[in-house]
């Protein structure tokens, strides 16, 4: 994976010094909260309901074991012994003390990590497919280009005060696991007629209060021109994006209001001016960065057969883990393991310091020291030899991380909600916990199959509820928390926004409502192979609406 050179290290260290000075001025009273606010936000430091929250960037969700160990150290030393993985592949600490933040950032800098641009109206951390560089279905590993975009966008002087935040997601595979069509810019690797690999560029996607599926603005941009193309989009957005209303300031609104063709025209005009200029990426530079992402030194294990059916009989929990938590690897004899952070009754995305150390140790022993973070709030050991599977599983059991529920109904995305977040209208974590308890039995979960539930505690949609097969949105109505339920959302290449079927439910009734939807699906599906989302696409709203609200 990418390693800092002297320049990167000096850059982050200067930034840490700069922010340390700002924190000192704040503590000394030289800066008011109003003056400090934009500065801390540029460094990922939020003020939440109970405390500051520090968001650490995990560029394109790739972590080295030593970095995860440092996150464990930070959690243990400065926080309450745990951290929280977000849907942006970042980690959040919810209880740091302001006076400790400079020390935290210095510790992170020592392992090439930082919190730059994890908040504020700038280009945020680039997210990618968590199986990048490992997935069997991949055209190209998107991470080298993601790293180049990270560098280009870091403290970019023109785009540091955009109308609103700006999120870029990439996938190197045709099966989109990074929800690229729900980002301000989504990049999907493409092969053109001459066999060259480049990028299809989607623009104007997003969730929040106005969910939009991104639109294709350019079907093929070669690597060498990608930065110029991105700069052209950012410039058009910076100049013409709405600034009069925070809720209409994302690029999705600009694209929606002005029309794709109009925006495309402006972007292409700008691109024509920039194309071939200073942002042209030379082949050598791409190769230089590519070298950091060279394939690990895989060993030849020959053909390894694992009989999942047999394992399921011998050890049902392990069998279930094999069935759900492994992902086809590009290299024969290897697999990618998803470590579920969704234990029944736990907080989705939370991980203790000890668990971080355990995962780091397993990564060192069995996955070339590499770890990934998924936008679904799990972590991945990307390169595990099939021969080591059982050892890894046993290690995870010991760490309390062996839940075999990945992709199933209890593998929910959940925002922190009203338990932590100052923006939230409603709690989300307790809702997720109630649902998880309801569907805790593995047999029941398996019967339901692949089903994504996503929960947000407010309309900002950090829990991606719009793209949940079942989405749950917490709202506040007349002093009580109500939960709106949507059906049919999809964050993949078949992007769709879920539909609201009727009035919301009070918290206590949410698990029943979910159960009704699930029962309706099981009753109507053509076979156990037809997933919830496939059945919904075939059947439409009606049976689900009826399940929730009756015939009335």
């Amino acid at each position, binding site marked *: 994976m990418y390693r800092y050179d002297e320049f990167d290290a000096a850059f982050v260290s200067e930034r840490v010094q700069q922010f340390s000075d700002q924190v000192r001025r704040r503590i000394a009273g030289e800066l008011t909260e109003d003056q400090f606010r934009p500065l801390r936000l540029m460094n990922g430091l939020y003020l939440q309901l109970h405390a500051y929250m520090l968001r650490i960037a995990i560029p394109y969700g790739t972590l080295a074991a030593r970095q995860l160990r440092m996150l464990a150290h930070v959690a243990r030393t400065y926080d309450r012994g745990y951290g929280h993985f977000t849907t942006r592949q970042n980690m959040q600490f919810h209880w740091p003390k302001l006076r400790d933040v400079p020390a935290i950032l210095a510790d992170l800098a020592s392992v090439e990590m930082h919190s730059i641009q994890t908040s504020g109206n700038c280009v945020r951390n680039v997210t990618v497919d968590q199986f990048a560089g490992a997935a069997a279905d991949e055209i190209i590993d998107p991470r080298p280009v993601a790293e180049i975009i990270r560098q280009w966008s870091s*403290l970019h002087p023109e785009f540091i005060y955009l109308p609103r935040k700006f999120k870029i997601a990439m996938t190197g595979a045709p099966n989109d696991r990074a929800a690229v069509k729900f980002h301000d810019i989504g990049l999907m690797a493409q092969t053109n007629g001459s066999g060259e690999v480049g990028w299809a560029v989607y623009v104007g996607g997003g969730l929040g209060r106005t969910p939009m599926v991104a639109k294709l603005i350019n079907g093929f941009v070669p690597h060498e021109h990608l930065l110029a193309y991105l700069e052209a989009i950012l410039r058009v957005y910076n100049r013409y994006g709405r600034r009069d209303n925070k809720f209409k300031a994302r690029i999705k609104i600009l694209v929606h209001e002005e029309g794709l063709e109009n925006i495309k025209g402006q972007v292409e005009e700008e691109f024509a001016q920039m194309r071939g200029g200073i942002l042209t990426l030379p082949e*050598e530079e791409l190769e230089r960065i590519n070298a950091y992402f060279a394939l690990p030194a895989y060993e030849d294990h020959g053909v390894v057969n694992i009989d999942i059916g047999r394992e399921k009989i011998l050890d049902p929990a392990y069998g279930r883990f094999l069935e759900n938590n492994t992902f086809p690897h590009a290299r024969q004899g290897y697999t990618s393991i998803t470590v579920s952070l969704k234990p029944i009754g736990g907080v989705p995305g939370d991980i203790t310091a000890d668990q971080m150390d355990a995962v780091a140790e397993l990564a060192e022993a069995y996955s070339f020291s590499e770890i990934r973070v998924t936008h679904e709030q799990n972590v991945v050991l990307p390169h595990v030899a099939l021969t080591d599977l059982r050892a890894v599983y046993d290690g995870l059991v010991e760490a309390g991380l062996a839940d075999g529920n990945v992709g199933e109904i209890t593998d929910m995305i959940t925002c922190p909600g009203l338990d932590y977040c100052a923006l939230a209208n409603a709690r989300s974590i307790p809702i997720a916990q109630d649902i998880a308890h309801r569907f805790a039995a593995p047999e029941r979960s398996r019967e339901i199959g692949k089903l994504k539930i996503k929960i947000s505690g407010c309309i900002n949609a950090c829990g991606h509820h719009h793209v949940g097969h079942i989405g749950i949105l917490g709202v506040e109505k007349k002093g009580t928390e109500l939960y709106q339920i949507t059906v049919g959302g999809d964050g993949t290449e078949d992007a769709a926004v879920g539909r609201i079927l009727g009035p919301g439910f009070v918290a206590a009734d949410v698990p029943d409502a979910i159960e009704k939807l699930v029962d309706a699906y099981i009753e109507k599906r053509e076979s156990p192979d037809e997933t919830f989302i496939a059945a919904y696409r075939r059947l439409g709203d009606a049976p689900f609406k009826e399940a929730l609200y009756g015939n009335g």
Partner: protein
Amino acid sequence: MSAASPMVAAEPRHDKLRQLGIVALNGMYGEMDAEGVLRQAVEELLAGDIAMVSSFGADSAVLLHLVSKVDPSLPVYFLETGKHFPETLDYVETLKTRLGLCNVVTLRPDPSDLAKFDPDGTLWETDPDSCCHIRKTEPLENVLAGFGGWVTGRKRFQTAERGVLPHFELTSDDRIKVNPLAYFSNADIEAYKAEHDLPQHPLYGEGYKSIGCAPCTSAVAEGEDPRAGRWRGLNKKECGIHFDFNGSIAKPVSQSQLTLFRDGEFRTDPWRGWSEGDVASEARYTHVPVSVFLEQREAFLASSHPIGLQVDPGDRVEDIAGDLARFSSIAINFPAFVDGRGYSSARLLRERYGYEGELRAVGDVLTDQIPFMRRCGINALVVTSAATRKALEADALAEVRLYYQPVGTAREIPVGTRPFLRRNARP
């Protein structure tokens, strides 16, 4: 600060009796008794130790007439700046002859100063304070030391700063400044000229009521302040030679009040914003909003005065790209620091349209944004925040001096950018 230096650097040596004497003198002479004031000064108070400076401007004739009556051989210094209207030079000769003045001394700027600071004669355009300094203040300083007192033609009504001007002033370097016309109103001047049939300055009839050097003087409208035509459009009222006299007169703008930061220091700012009622053909040293410029483009292009442009968020710099050569300064407005549109405007002006003049940030200019502004090509800042001023003065901006992405033209030397960018950024 390079301009408007105090005339005298000596420490004040005030003598209480002398100060009382000045108070008494001011009490002794009535409001209209200009000739008496002058006679007292020239014959009694400062006999042989007093001189005067005259601009030979629109109303210089009155005081020169008084001088000719009291003592035609009183030294009269004329600052030949080299920038006068030819009519003014003619007028010097007219008045000398007519009034019988026999001791008019012409002072010229030091040629080495001109060669050094104003080789092409356009300093007035970029830095009028410095222009006044080398053409007026410096030459005068050389003769000032030789006299204990000066006669001036200043009047209370001329500028707001002179509203309390007395007949006799003790200057901070212990000289006496005599202002015989201090209490004259504009009407008194006109009456005196008529009564004595004094020749008018040839430009007076053309609307010039207060006349200095040609480039910095324009005509004034009926009813307008007569000095409104001096340094029109600039926040400048005095040329520097009247500064620092006994506290009753305008003081030089102190460093702390300067808001323009450029080339490492706070400096005087000749520019102002466009105001309602400004006239395109007469605007100078004014940042004209893009919309106003486009509406009256022909008038602005026809005028020969230096003008600037104000680019607000939402303005399309493409619309004025063809006229950039017309602007001596462009102000990018950041009404709130979170409005980042100005960064794009700045880069487009510099990088795409090749604008090389002053590009200044105005509005909500704060320390943490300045490094980004500079990278986008902004080379001057108008700063009102005290904290930002402090940071600039201490050269202690919160800044990351390394950067990843190339912006700007080849002029930006990337300290340690990516290898491919480093290579391309070399000219």
